[in-house]
C-alpha cells in the first residue's frame, strides 16, 4: 500500500495547553479522508501541520513516502483551501489562480513588475501559465469570472475560485479546512457533490476537515473522529456510525443523537435497564455497570410492557414527513429517549400517552463505564455488520 500522508505521534501544544496528543494516521494515496470533530478539538492545527504552516512539537509527517518535516509549505506539494477562502482581494480571479504558478515557474527577476516582462523566456512561461489558468477555470466553470475581483463574487463562486487556486498547480495532496462552512445550507449540499466529483476526477489524496457529520459521512472514504486532540476512531463512514469504538464517537455521530441508557448486569445474559430486563450478554460480572447505546431507529413498537420492552410517557412527537420521532420519558433516565417510528404509526402514540418500545437487541451497542466499546463474544455474532480490525 502506498501512502499519501503518514502522520506519526504528532504532538502539539500552544503554551501550556496540549492541542494534539500523539496523533498517528495513515492516509492512502488517492484516499478521501475526513477529520471530523467538534470545534476546537485540533483539526485545523493538524491540517496546518501537514501543510507546514505549523510545526509539531513531536512526531513526523511524510507525504508520498518522503519525510517533509524540514520542508516549507511550498516544497511539500500540498494545496490548501481555507475556510475563509483567503483569496487575495486586490487581485482578479485570474491573477489569484495564476499566483501559485507564477511563484513556481517564474524566477525572482521574471516576476518583477516591468523588467520581468522583457526578460527572455518570461513571455513563453506566461503563456503556459495563462493556458493552465484557463484550463482550471474551465473545469470549474469560472472562466467567465476571470476578470472580476473576489469582492464581486458570491460565496459559492469564491469557494470555487479557492478550489481552483488549489487545483491549478496539480498538487499531490489537497488539504481543505471546512471549505463549505461559510455557505448557506442549500449551496453546501450542491458543493459537497462537486467536491466529491472533483476528488473522483483528480484522483489525488484529499484531507478534509469538518465539524459537520453529514459532510464527513457523504464525502469520505474514511472518517477520522477527533476529540480533544486525540483520534478516537478511523473507519469507513458506515462503521463510524454502526460500529463505534468509543462512546464519544457514538455520541458525536448520528442525528438525533444515540440514546445512552445506564444499566446494571443482573446475571450472565441479563441486564437491568430502565425498569425492565434485557437478555444481553455483556461479558461483565454480576452487578457491573454498563451503558447501552441505542440509535433512534433501533426501536420497534411493542403491544404491552414486559421483559425487553421499555415503557415511558411520550413527551413530544416530531413529524418529519417520512419519519416520526417520539421523545419518551423513561424511569431512571435524565434525558428522554428518542425513537424513530414509521410515520404511519401516527395513529399509535399520542402526546402524554404511554409508549412501549422494544429495542432490537442486535442493534444494541455496549459501552464500559470508561467509554470503551464492549464486544462480548455473543454480541459479536449478532452484530449486523462484519467487524473489521482498524487499519
Amino acid at each position: 500500500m502506498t501512502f499519501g500522508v503518514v502522520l506519526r505521534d504528532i504532538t502539539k501544544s500552544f503554551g501550556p495547553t496540549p492541542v494534539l496528543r500523539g496523533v498517528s494516521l495513515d492516509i492512502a494515496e488517492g484516499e478521501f479522508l475526513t477529520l471530523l470533530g467538534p470545534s476546537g478539538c485540533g483539526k485545523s492545527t493538524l491540517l496546518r501541520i501537514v501543510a507546514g504552516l505549523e510545526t509539531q512539537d513531536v512526531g513526523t509527517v511524510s507525504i508520498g513516502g518522503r519525510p517533509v518535516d524540514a520542508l516549507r509549505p511550498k516544497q511539500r506539494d500540498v494545496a490548501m483551501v481555507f475556510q475563509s477562502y483567503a483569496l487575495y482581494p486586490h487581485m482578479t480571479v485570474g491573477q489569484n489562480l495564476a499566483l501559485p504558478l507564477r511563484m513556481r515557474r517564474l524566477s525572482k527577476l521574471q516576476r518583477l513588475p516591468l523588467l520581468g516582462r522583457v526578460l527572455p523566456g518570461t513571455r513563453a512561461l506566461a503563456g503556459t501559465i495563462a493556458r493552465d489558468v484557463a484550463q482550471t477555470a474551465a473545469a470549474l466553470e469560472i472562466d467567465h469570472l476571470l476578470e472580476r475581483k473576489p469582492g464581486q463574487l458570491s460565496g459559492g463562486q469564491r469557494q470555487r475560485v479557492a478550489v481552483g487556486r488549489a487545483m491549478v498547480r496539480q498538487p499531490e495532496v489537497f488539504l481543505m479546512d471546512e471549505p463549505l462552512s461559510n455557505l448557506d445550507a442549500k449551496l453546501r449540499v450542491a458543493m459537497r457533490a462537486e467536491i466529491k466529483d472533483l476528488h473522483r476526477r483528480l484522483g489525488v489524496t484529499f484531507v478534509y476537515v469538518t465539524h459537520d457529520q453529514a459532510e464527513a459521512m457523504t464525502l469520505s472514504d474514511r472518517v477520522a473522529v477527533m476529540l480533544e486532540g486525540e483520534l478516537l476512531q478511523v473507519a469507513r463512514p458506515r462503521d463510524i456510525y454502526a460500529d463505534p469504538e468509543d462512546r464519544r464517537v457514538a455520541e458525536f455521530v448520528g442525528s438525533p443523537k444515540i440514546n445512552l441508557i445506564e444499566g446494571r448486569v443482573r446475571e450472565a445474559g441479563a441486564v437491568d435497564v430502565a425498569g425492565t430486563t434485557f437478555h444481553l450478554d455483556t461479558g461483565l460480572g454480576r452487578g457491573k455497570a454498563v451503558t447501552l447505546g441505542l440509535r433512534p431507529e433501533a426501536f420497534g413498537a411493542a403491544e404491552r410492557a414486559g421483559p425487553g420492552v421499555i415503557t415511558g410517557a411520550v413527551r413530544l412527537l416530531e413529524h418529519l414527513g417520512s419519519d416520526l420521532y417520539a421523545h419518551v420519558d423513561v424511569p431512571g433516565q435524565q434525558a428522554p429517549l428518542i425513537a424513530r417510528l414509521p410515520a404511519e404509526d401516527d395513529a399509535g402514540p399520542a402526546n402524554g400517552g404511554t409508549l412501549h418500545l422494544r429495542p432490537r437487541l442486535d442493534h444494541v451497542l455496549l459501552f464500559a463505564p470508561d467509554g470503551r466499546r464492549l464486544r462480548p463474544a455473543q454480541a459479536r455474532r449478532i452484530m449486523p455488520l462484519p467487524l473489521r480490525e482498524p487499519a
Partner: protein
Amino acid sequence: MAVDFASWRRSETAPCPSGGAQARKQALAEALAAGLLAGPAVLLLLALFLLPVLAVFVIAVTDWQFGARSLSFVGLKNFAELFADPVFRRSLVNTVLYVCIVVPATVGLGLLIALLIESGPRLRAFYRAIHFLPYMATLAAMAIAWEALLHPTIGIVNQTLASLGLPTPNWLRDENTVLPVLAVIGIWQGLGFAMVLFLAGLKAIPVDLYDAAEVDGADATLDRLRVVTLPMLGPVMMFVVIVTALRAFEVFDTVKILTQGGPAKASEVLLHTLYVESFEFLRTGYGAAVTVVFLFIVVALTLLQARILDRRVHYS
C-alpha cells in the same frame, strides 16, 4: 353590520381629510424638533467654520488692513500681487519641498518600524517611546529642545560630529540645511502617528492570507510584502499619506519658534507667510489671499483622497 365594519376598516387604513391635516401638523412638529436639536451644532459650524471661511474669501478681494475702519473692493489684485511676490513664491516652493521630504520619509519609516515591530515583540518599548514622546510634550517645548540639540557649538549634534572630525554646520542658520532640519523635526513629529496607524492596519490583515501566500509559494519577505502586506495596507496607506501631507502643509510652530522663516527666507512656509502678513504687517486682505491659496491646496488634497484614490485601494 358588514358595511359598518368596512367603513371602520377604511378609516383605519386611509386617513380622511381631517386626519391629513393632523399628519401635516405632526410632520411640521417633527421638522421643528429636528431643527431645534440640530440647531446648536449647525450654529457652531456656521460660527466657527463656514462664516470664517466665507469672511476669508470676502476679505481676500479687499484691501482691508487689520484695525482699519474702511476697506474697498480690489478684485483679484491681492492674488496678482501674491504670485508676483518672490517671498510668497519662495514660501510656496519651500512648503512643497518640505511636504515632499516629510511625507515619503514619514510614511516609509512609519511602515518600516511597524513591520519590524510586527515581526517581533522586542521593539515594543521603543515603539511606545517613539510614539508618545512627540505627543506628550507640547511642540513649543519640543522645538526648544531641538534648538538645544542643534546649537552650533554646545548642541549634542555638533559636539558628536566634532568629536568624529566631521563638519559642524550651523543647522538652523544655514540656508542649505535649515529646511531639511525642519523636515527631520516634522518627520519625528509624525512618525509615531503613522506607525500606530500602520500597526493597526497590519493587525487587520487576515492571517489566512499569509498562510495562503505561503502555500502558494510567496513566502520570502519581499514576496509577502508584494502579494499580501502592501496591497492590504492600501486604504491605511492612503489615509496616512493624506493626513501626513495635510499636517506637513500646515507646518508652522517649528518655523515660528526656531527660524522665523530665515535665514534669507530659506525656511519661509505658507502658514508663516500668512501669519506674518496678517498679524505682523497687518495686511489682512493680502493674508486672506494666502489663506485662500492654502485652503485650495488642502481641499484639493482631501478631494483627491475622497474621489480618486479611495476607489483604487478599496477592493470590494
